[in-house]
């Protein structure tokens, strides 16, 4: 029994990088809301990038470990303690058998709303259709297809060799994604941009939008100026991507997120870039965002920049691991 859940948090899910290859069957990809924070956490621990971790939304959790392992908390700024002693996030901590990890509320910075608790070896739940990601609406994947509850016993996989040597390693601050006030959410033109008037397109890419309370893993509903259609929002259903921006009849944008439906019948004005959709996922109700129109090349550049950061992180960690140390 590698860990037992004492307090589950409000919506804690097992996630890996997603259930790809089945969208043609109506099965969504799922995956973390902020894939970049999960991947950074895994690399800090020397895990594979696709290893499964816990995604927490807004609040943390409390678990008791059954055996020794290393953990790292990434993503939103939540406070963490081990056996009652506060420890920093974005840092690898070694926890002894019986150790109690508590992830509590926000630190003073209150940055973000999705956090990832990664474990050396990754979480051991049976892969379903090639992925350990939880898809709660379909009741598949993760821990019994649902969010964690108090009393659940969750397994961990065998860590990779030398895993203990990463203890104490901290992700350099410049490699951590951080939110900034007024940060733009980058978006590309969507397949039905022609279904919107020039004025509508201008509104979407220039005006501020507020994140509403209606946000979940399926979509983010935003409030702000109405985006004008040429002749209504309905069309014959076609494909949806992570980040698709649709504007139903009320003209208010909805950004489709990790648990999106695979197809839909509303006109899509834009699609948020892969990088920015994870940044949007860290926004909370009341936050104001602006969309910035970018090209495919610019969107790809965001991803190449992250890959470079990931490579640097891995290099830094390898150097840390092989540092001379007192015995």
């Amino acid at each position, binding site marked *: 029994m590698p860990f037992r859940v004492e307090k589950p948090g409000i919506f804690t899910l097992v996630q890996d990088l997603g259930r790809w*290859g089945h969208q*043609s069957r*109506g*099965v969504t990809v799922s995956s973390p809301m902020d894939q970049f924070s999960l991947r950074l956490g895994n690399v800090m621990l020397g895990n594979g990038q696709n290893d499964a971790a816990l995604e927490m939304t807004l609040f943390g959790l409390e678990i008791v470990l059954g055996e020794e392992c290393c953990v790292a908390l990434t993503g939103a700024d939540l406070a963490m303690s081990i056996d009652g002693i506060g420890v920093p996030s974005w840092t690898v901590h070694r926890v002894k058998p019986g150790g109690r990890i508590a992830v509590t509320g926000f630190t003073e910075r209150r940055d973000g709303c999705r956090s990832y608790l990664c474990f050396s070896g990754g979480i051991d739940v049976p892969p*379903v*259709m090639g992925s350990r990601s939880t898809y709660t609406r379909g009741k598949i994947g993760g821990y019994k297809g649902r969010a964690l509850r108090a009393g659940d016993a969750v397994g961990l996989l065998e860590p990779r060799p030398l895993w203990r040597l990463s203890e104490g390693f901290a992700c350099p601050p410049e490699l951590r994604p951080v939110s900034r006030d007024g940060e733009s959410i980058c978006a590309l033109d969507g397949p039905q941009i022609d279904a919107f008037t020039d004025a509508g397109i201008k509104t979407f890419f220039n005006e501020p939008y507020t994140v509403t309370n209606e946000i979940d893993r399926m979509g983010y509903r935003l409030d702000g100026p109405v985006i004008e259609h040429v002749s209504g929002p309905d069309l014959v259903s076609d494909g949806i991507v992570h*980040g698709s921006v649709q504007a139903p009849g009320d003209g208010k944008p909805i950004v489709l997120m990790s648990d999106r439906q695979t197809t839909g019948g509303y006109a899509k004005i834009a699609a948020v*870039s892969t990088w920015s959709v994870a940044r949007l996922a860290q926004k909370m109700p009341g936050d104001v965002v602006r969309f910035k129109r970018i090209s495919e090349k610019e969107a790809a550049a965001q991803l190449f920049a992250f890959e470079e950061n990931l490579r640097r992180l891995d290099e830094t960690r390898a150097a840390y691991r092989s540092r001379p140390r007192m015995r």
Partner: protein
Amino acid sequence: MYDAPKFLGSGDSCLVVEFSDSIEMEANFRLQNLMRALASKNVRGVREFVPTYRSLSIHYDPLKLGREKLETAVRKTLENLGGERGETRRVLVMPVCYGGEHGPDMPHVCAHTGYGENEVIKRHTDAEYYCYMLGFTPGFAYLGGLDETLATPRLKAPRALIPAGSVGIADRQTGAYSIDCPGGWQLIGRTPLRLFDPDDGERPTLIDAGDWIKFRSVPKDEYASIKRDADAGCYRAEWLMERNAVQG
């Protein structure tokens, strides 16, 4: 159908090849043919294909494949692409127990259409249905081919939970709920077949886009015995392989 398909961007990792803006079987055949032809080419960086009524979404990894290169590969494939349907077609015979407890809205559909229950069943089982695409929930098939006289509007208040396998009518559409979920279709029956099985790594959904379906009316006891076998994973669904007439 458009004279030439349109290439539409959908974010930084998906290209949409659109053949039509309406529901047309010819457009659907073409995009399915494109999907098969591209899949056989194993283009590096392509993650998966999602066929819909009228377009093919090609998901790719922008770190491995640029949009221009992908477009070129698609254009080349389109040049040699036929619009015809395949030589054979697969028809799933889907047993359905109509009316009664399994089809609580049958009386409403009868009242709306003016047909008796037997006539509704006859018209529903006489037609053959084409699966344009899957979507909405895992394994849900969007079917074309409903006898228009059976068209009945959705329920005014959707049900909170509809059991998987329920067969319903919503306006001019018909189909079977693939998982337990809320919904507003008029339920006329239920199939004992398992339409979505996440533990089946090979074939998690029974129906694929491009398949055909024919409903077969079964009595309650046959429904129960098929359901027992299907739930135990030992029922073999009945498929007919039919040769398509050569078009010309």
